[in-house]
Every structure is written in structure tokens, then in C-alpha cells.
């Protein structure tokens, strides 16, 4: 198999915020790689640092955030050494992002046409007519009915699914190599969700575009991604090829996420599994393994020592008591 070029290399990415009660670290030592055209799924509960990690990659962290990383490379370029302007020129052109709530992510005062046009104008330029044609073409590719009519519409006149298609259209306007999709289907209902997922898969096929797909729904991630990583309290606790993670989750947190999926339990009418507790408060993190207070298998070692990352056969996990017999 030919080795694909590295799209994104992240090593030891940390994001921290100073607060009145001390510094918090919502993202800790995040490391991963993505190949061109690959779909990497990121899964974890709300508050696991997924969105902040995305914003860090895009260079859109709030001003008071502190970003540190050993390596942060996009297509071989060191993102940390780029100036603000260089970074801005990369945004939307080579790495684009779509968001959770498409209705809120579009400007309510500007027409759809104007918003797509802006994205085209800033990176590709061209005459007004050319840009309009490009916008129509994009909307058509997104499967939006009557694109010419839609250009004059305002976001509130469109449904959530249509808004997300518009978001995707403006995100991929200049053929980015990486699309960061931050919970793109969470605010949509199930049928629209699968349409958007199909659309993303099609775009990946057609454009060989890498997609960093973030969701709290492990079912969705399992469906769409080639590889997946599970995040908990700002750290990756397990990562590997999606199919293998589905077959044999190693980390108890991954297992718990799977068990919480409706339809996962064998018998009907049995109660849905519910992982007790909440994600730790970032100001008072637990000692040892971050997951141990909620972990059904935790022992005294888990409470005392933070587990080392173990990497075996392309899998990696952070757990003292891994599940399954995979050796």
C-alpha cells in the first residue's frame, strides 16, 4: 500500500485558560496524525475538549487561551510559526470548518448568496459573475434544491439541514484539504443527519478531502470514520482503526459509550445503559486516571497513578486495566 502524505501532525497539543480560581487545562497532550483524504472521528462527551482542540487547529481560540504544542503541522507547514495573516489565509482556503448549529452559524442579516460569495471572494477572487456561478455550482453539488432562488434567501428562511448544506458549500468553496466538522449533525434530525453524512462521504470520495469529524455520538463516528479517537477530560484515552474499536473496545470509557447507544442492548425493553457521573470539573481534576471515579472496573492503582499511553498494533490506549483479550 502506498503511503499517503501526512495532512496533519499534532503532538502534545495543550490548551489552557487562566481563571480566577487557577489555570484550567481543557485539552492535555493531544497527539494524532491525519493522512490526506482520511476521515478521523473524534468522540467524547460534552466538555471533553473536542471543540477547543478544533478551534486550536483552526487558530480561532479566544484571546485569553494559551496554546502549546510540540508539533502542529499542516501539510508539512508549521502552524505555530505562521503569522496571523498567514494563518488567516490558510483558514477557509486549505482548512475549513463547519459547526454544530448551522442556523446560528450563518449570519441572520446577510443572504445565503452574499455569505457564500464572501468565502469565494476572499480566497479565489474572480468577477462577480464567476463567483455567482461558482456559488450556484456549489449549492447544486450540495444537493440544495433551486439553488438560484436560494442565493437570495436569508438563513431563517431555510431549514437546519439546508443551512448545514450552505455551511458545507462555503467551507469547501476553495477545495480545502481538511474539513473540520464539529458536531455537524447534532442539531439535525435523524433523516437529515444521514443525508449530511452521505454528503460528507461523497465529498471525501470526490475531492480526497480529509475530514476531522467530531461528535459525541459514537454511533455516528463509527459509521463515517476510518480511524477514531475517544477523548475524555481533554485527553485521548483510546485511538485506532474504527472497525477494530467497534469490534473490541479497550478502554472502559469507549465501552460505556457504546453501551449507551440505543439499540445496543440485546433484548428489547431492557433499560438503556447509563454511564453514571459527569466529566470532571477542570478546576478539581481527580488524581490518577481521569476516568476512575466513573469507571466500573477501577482499582486502587487507577486512583493513584495516571496510566501511561500504550501503543500496540496501531492501537493506542491509556488504561491500567484494558478490556478484552487482544494479545
Amino acid at each position, binding site marked *: 500500500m502506498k503511503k499517503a502524505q501526512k495532512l496533519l501532525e499534532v503532538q502534545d497539543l495543550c490548551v489552557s485558560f487562566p481563571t480566577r480560581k487557577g489555570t484550567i487545562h481543557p485539552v492535555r497532550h493531544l497527539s494524532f496524525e491525519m493522512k490526506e483524504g482520511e476521515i478521523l472521528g473524534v468522540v467524547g462527551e460534552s466538555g471533553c475538549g473536542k471543540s477547543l482542540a478544533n478551534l486550536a487547529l483552526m487558530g*480561532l481560540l479566544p484571546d485569553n487561551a494559551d496554546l502549546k504544542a510540540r508539533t502542529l503541522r499542516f501539510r508539512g507547514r508549521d502552524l505555530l510559526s505562521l503569522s496571523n495573516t498567514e494563518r*488567516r489565509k490558510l483558514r477557509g482556503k486549505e482548512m475549513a470548518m463547519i*459547526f454544530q448549529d448551522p442556523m446560528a452559524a450563518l*449570519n441572520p442579516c446577510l443572504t445565503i448568496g452574499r455569505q457564500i460569495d*464572501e*468565502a469565494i471572494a476572499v480566497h479565489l477572487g474572480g468577477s462577480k459573475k464567476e463567483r455567482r456561478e461558482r456559488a450556484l455550482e456549489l449549492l447544486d453539488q450540495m444537493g440544495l434544491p433551486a439553488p438560484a432562488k436560494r442565493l437570495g434567501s436569508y438563513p*431563517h428562511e431555510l431549514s437546519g439541514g439546508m443551512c448545514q448544506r450552505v455551511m458545507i458549500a462555503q*467551507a469547501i468553496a476553495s477545495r480545502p484539504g481538511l474539513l473540520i466538522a464539529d458536531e455537524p449533525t447534532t442539531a439535525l434530525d435523524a433523516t437529515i443527519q444521514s443525508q449530511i453524512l452521505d454528503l460528507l462521504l461523497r465529498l471525501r470520495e470526490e475531492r480526497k478531502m480529509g475530514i476531522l469529524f467530531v461528535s459525541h455520538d459514537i454511533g455516528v463516528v463509527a459509521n463515517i470514520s476510518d480511524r477514531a479517537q475517544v477523548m475524555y477530560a481533554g485527553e485521548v484515552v483510546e485511538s485506532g482503526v474504527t472497525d477494530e474499536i467497534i469490534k473490541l473496545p479497550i478502554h472502559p470509557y469507549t465501552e460505556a459509550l457504546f453501551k449507551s447507544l440505543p439499540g445496543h442492548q440485546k433484548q428489547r425493553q431492557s433499560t438503556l445503559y447509563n454511564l453514571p457521573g459527569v466529566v470532571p470539573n477542570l478546576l478539581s481534576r481527580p488524581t490518577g486516571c481521569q476516568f476512575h471515579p466513573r469507571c466500573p472496573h477501577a482499582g486502587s492503582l487507577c486512583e493513584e497513578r495516571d496510566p501511561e499511553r500504550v501503543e500496540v498494533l496501531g492501537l493506542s490506549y491509556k488504561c491500567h486495566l484494558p478490556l478484552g483479550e487482544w494479545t
Partner: protein
Amino acid sequence: MGGFFLRQLSTAIPTLMGVSLLAFALVRLVPGDPVLLMLGERGGSEEQYAQMEKKLGLHLPLYRQYLGFIGNAATGDLGKSTLTQRPVTEEFFSRFPATLELGLCAILFAVFIGIPAGVVAAMKHHSAFDYTIMGLSLVGHSMPIFWWALILIIAFSVNLGLTPVSGRIHILYDIPSVSGLFLVDTLLQGNIEAFFSALRHLLLPTVVIGTIPLAVVARMTRSSMLEVLHKDYVRTARAKGLEERNVLIFHALRNALIPLITVIGLQFGSIITGAILTETIFSWPGIGKWMVHSVEQRDYPVIQGGVLIIASMVIFINMAVDAIYALVNPQMKRSR
């Protein structure tokens, strides 16, 4: 759009009825007898009193006086001033341009300084600039207007001699009235000197009247911008790689201005109805000064008529603000 105005009008009429009743009742509740004032200091006989009372129409029962007032008002006749014997509407519109000119300058002053100050304060949230602007606007908002006016007069007119103390224009100039706004009329006449004279006369009153709106606009712009800057669509705009300037103007400010329109409209409404204190201090021949004078003289038709016109204007301004609001906010427009 037609339905929109019909709806607005249907609420305007009961409001005006209420205002007319209130104005009518209030002038009569205030102590003081216009008949006695008209008869002069030496007073007069019983007969002269009755004659004057009849002439002023005050001999009629109250309900008939009121019905007469609104009946005539409906045809556009607000009666004649008991003092000058000129129609109230004529008196009003001869003074209104002075108030309008001052009001327009004051609101422009407030908007053109307040909005940029608010935007910068929001962008530099929690900075020294932010705190300074907000502190100043708090001071501006809480300062007594008459005191502020006197301080400015002492500083700029008396000590520095930069600005005139009172009036609209130097007595030297004779400006034919076209719009009634001296800044416009002097330019139409091509008289640049007169224009600058009018401008210098406007300076201090503008600052005095514009101070509170300026404070309000700056604070509102800041809080509206702060809210908008955290919206998802601003993040989207940044994620597209737009220049920060475009993000701020087309995505943030464009949306932040929507609630501001209401605020600016309300402020303009209150300015235009006559800044009583400021007009009195600067001897500005506008409707505020006129109304105060009428109250002193118990000029019933002028007071009740003037109040009615002012109320109609406020209602009209509010309607206009609602219309503008609907224009700039696409979510208020009907879906096509």
C-alpha cells in the same frame, strides 16, 4: 408593508386621545388663571373678567371645551395663542426648525462618536480604554444638564471666547428661510461666513443635548457588540478566513446595530420634543423655550396644542423607527 402602517396607526389614535385629555386636564389643574393674566396687573371689573373669559372660551363647561379642542384638532386647527393671537400650529412650526436643527446635530454627534467608541470598547473589552469610555459615559449620563451647560459656557465662551453664549446665528446675518435649518439655508445662500457663525452657535448646545444620547449610544453599542462578538456566525466569518475588519463591520456591527436603532430612535424622539433646559440656557428659539414661556403665561391653547403636536411627532418617530427596524432586520420581513 401597508398593513404594518395600518396597525401602527390604529395604536396611534388612542394614544393621541389619551395625550390630548391629559394635556387638557393638566393645564387646568395647574394653579393660575389665564383670564387674570390677560387682564394685566391692575385687573379689571367683573364685567371685563366675564368678557375676557368668554373671549377665551373658558366660560363653557369643561367637557364642551375639551370636545371643542379635539374636534378642531382633528381638522388641524389647534386654536390661537391667547397671548399673540396667532394660530398655535403657525407658532409651532416657526420655532420647530430651530429645535430640529439642534436635535439633528445632537443625535449625529451622539451616533458618530458613540458607535465607534462603543465598538472599540467592546473589541478591547476590560482594557483601560474600555473602562475609560464606560466611566465617562456613566458621568455623562448622570451629569445635570444645566450644570454641564454652564460649565461649558464658562470654559469655552467666557474664558476662551471660542463660542457665542446664546442664539442661533450672529445678528449681522439675514438668512432667508428655506428649510428653516440655518446650516442648510446659509449654504443655499452661499454665505460661508454665516454658515460658520451658525455652526459656532450650534456647537455648545449640541454637545450639551448630545451628551446623554452619546453616553447611552456608547454603552449600548458596547454591550450589543460584546453580545454579537460571541455569536456563532462571527466565528464562522473568522473560520472563512475573512479579514478581521470585514468580520467586525459586516458580521458583528451589522447585527449589533439592530437593537441600537430603537435606542437611537427613542433618544431622537426625546431630543426633538424640545430640550427645555438647554434651549432656555442658550436662548435657543426652539419649542422647548416656547413651551416653558406658554406655561408661565397660562397660554392654554399653546400648551395643550403644543403637547399634542409633540406627542404626534414622537409617535411618528417611533413608527419610522419600527419601519427602519423592519428594513434592516431580514427576520422581520415576510418570507418570499
